[in-house]
């Protein structure tokens, strides 16, 4: 377990380096570069002063080194557009994306597993085909378009759900704001969980111990739910780790459609304002979210499946 943790830590650090380096060099080597964030009417002397103050005259590799050194001490710099520390701006937005993400995962795991089991139990019948058809549709609809269409239907025409924003006076109101964003974010994750549960169930059902439990005369329900499902779910846990980056990508669009004040919106604002420190900060935190969630998934996985204890070797 310790060996596994160390290996994981190494991989995480490498991942963080790759992501931050790509983002940093992308922004700094682009035409226009960091100086383009300055005011248009700044004089030459002012430009020089600002460049000096921000350390923009150093070589880009040196600047990246500085950034990494500061980041290691928890200092992500100051947001150019508002003058607040980057950490504060992220701390404002982070909880919203976290909540949205957790609800989405919960929703897609529960619905995905249930639908996947239905699909497997009715293999090659119309139910199975219908579920498969629905999964492919979910993966094929542009999420922002689905969002706009849902707003058109549920907010404008029917008036059932609020079209944007967060919070509300009543618990029901703040809950209702989650419904559409969660459903749309789930179109990226739910179909994969359904497919995975289905194929995993089908594989388990053909195993000998299932045949044995059937031969013993156990009820079909007992066979499916207490013998097959338990083992079928193990690989499903592992796929959640893969789905988290995909879901976070989805937040960029969904948060923009629904005016959700989370990290996805923040990166759009930061990129448009060329707020380099903020872009770097959001990228790091989002990557760290992925790393942390993958780590949790791995721990759960090794707890559930005794066979993967020696995962690191």
């Amino acid at each position: 377990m310790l060996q596994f943790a160390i290996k994981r830590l190494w991989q995480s650090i490498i991942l963080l380096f790759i992501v931050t380096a790509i983002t940093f060099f992308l922004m700094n080597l682009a035409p226009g570069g960091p100086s383009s964030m300055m005011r248009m009417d700044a004089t030459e002397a002012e430009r020089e002063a600002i460049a000096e103050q921000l350390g923009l005259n150093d070589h880009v590799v040196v600047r990246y080194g500085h950034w990494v050194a500061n980041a290691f001490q928890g200092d992500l710099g100051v947001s150019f557009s508002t003058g607040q520390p980057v950490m504060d701006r992220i701390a404002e937005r982070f909880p919203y994306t976290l909540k949205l993400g957790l609800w989405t995962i919960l929703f897609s795991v529960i619905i995905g597993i249930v639908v996947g089991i239905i699909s497997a139990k009715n293999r090659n019948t119309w139910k199975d085909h219908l579920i498969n058809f629905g999964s492919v549709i979910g993966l094929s609809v542009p999420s922002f378009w689905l969002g706009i269409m849902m707003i058109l239907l549920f907010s404008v025409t029917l008036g059932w759900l609020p079209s944007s924003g967060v919070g509300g006076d009543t618990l029901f109101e703040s809950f209702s704001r989650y419904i559409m964003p969660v459903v749309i974010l789930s179109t990226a994750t739910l179909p994969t969980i359904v497919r995975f549960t289905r194929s995993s169930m089908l594989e388990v059902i053909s195993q000998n111990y299932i045949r044995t439990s059937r031969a013993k005369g156990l009820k079909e329900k007992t066979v499916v739910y207490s013998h097959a499902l338990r083992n079928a779910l193990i690989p499903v846990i592992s796929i959640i780790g893969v789905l988290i980056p995909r879901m976070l990508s989805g937040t960029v669009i969904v948060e923009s459609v629904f005016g959700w004040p989370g990290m996805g919106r923040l990166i759009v604002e930061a990129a448009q304002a060329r707020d380099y420190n903020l872009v770097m900060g959001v990228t790091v935190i989002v990557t760290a979210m992925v790393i942390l969630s993958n780590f949790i998934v791995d721990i759960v996985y090794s707890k559930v499946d005794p066979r993967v204890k020696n995962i690191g070797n």
Partner: protein
Amino acid sequence: MSQAQEVEIKAVKREPRFRSFLKELSKNKVAFIALIFLVLIHVVVFLGPFIWTVNPDSTDPRNALASWSLEHPLGTDDLGRDVFSRMLAGGQITLLVGFASMVFTVIVGGLIGAIAGYFGGWIDTILMRFTEAMLSVPNFFLVLVALTVLGKSPFMVIIVIALTSWMEIARVIYGETLRWKESEFVEASASMGSSSIRTLLKHVVPQIIPSVIVSSTLGIAWAILSESAISYLGLGIQPPTATWGNMLQNAQQYIWTEPILGILPGVAITLVVLAYNFLGDGLRDILDPKYQKK
């Protein structure tokens, strides 16, 4: 092995595969309908403008947001442009961007996967670790930053989509290369003195092609979706050039009054992506025995 024998074996092995390909595809009704739909939509989009010759960019402010008529079968948009001809012109760009992104994705992913699989050792370790790392990046964040700072030309859109979505294909090709490089006919070819490049191109690559076809079909679907999402954020191909994605973005402000402007391109994108996904799934069932339904 004499040349005649080699030819004969090829004939035995290959001919039935290609001859029965369409037959097998027609058994999978959904995939077959998807293929027919895709052929039709490409014909309409690329040949349609020769028949429907209205200029998609010519504006007519007095006739803005008109509903359908004989003159404008799908009505006009906010600048009085003919929606039908813009759907055709936009479809061309969307489909071409999807196809081009897929080609670049396959090149990048294919090279990385094949090199890692074929050469093994530290090259393998570095490349596949990098692939794994890229897979766990929420890549839309990178897409967004890249397009904001690098500009929004069609070429940039294609490159950025390719550079953030090559990983799945790299893994598929990597797995296939590992599988085939140990096989007997590859060993035989090497032992008869073929260079490693020749072996790779002549014997390994043909085995991989079915997987590449499946991945690229699904890749086009992904690229079209990405293009539309990028356009939604205003970072895609810029107006007046129409794409289905930027038509949707433009329609957003009129969505409450003229919902049809937003519904049409969205339905078009969904149907094309759906068809590519179904076709890809169907092709996988036929071409890739590993995935065949039990």
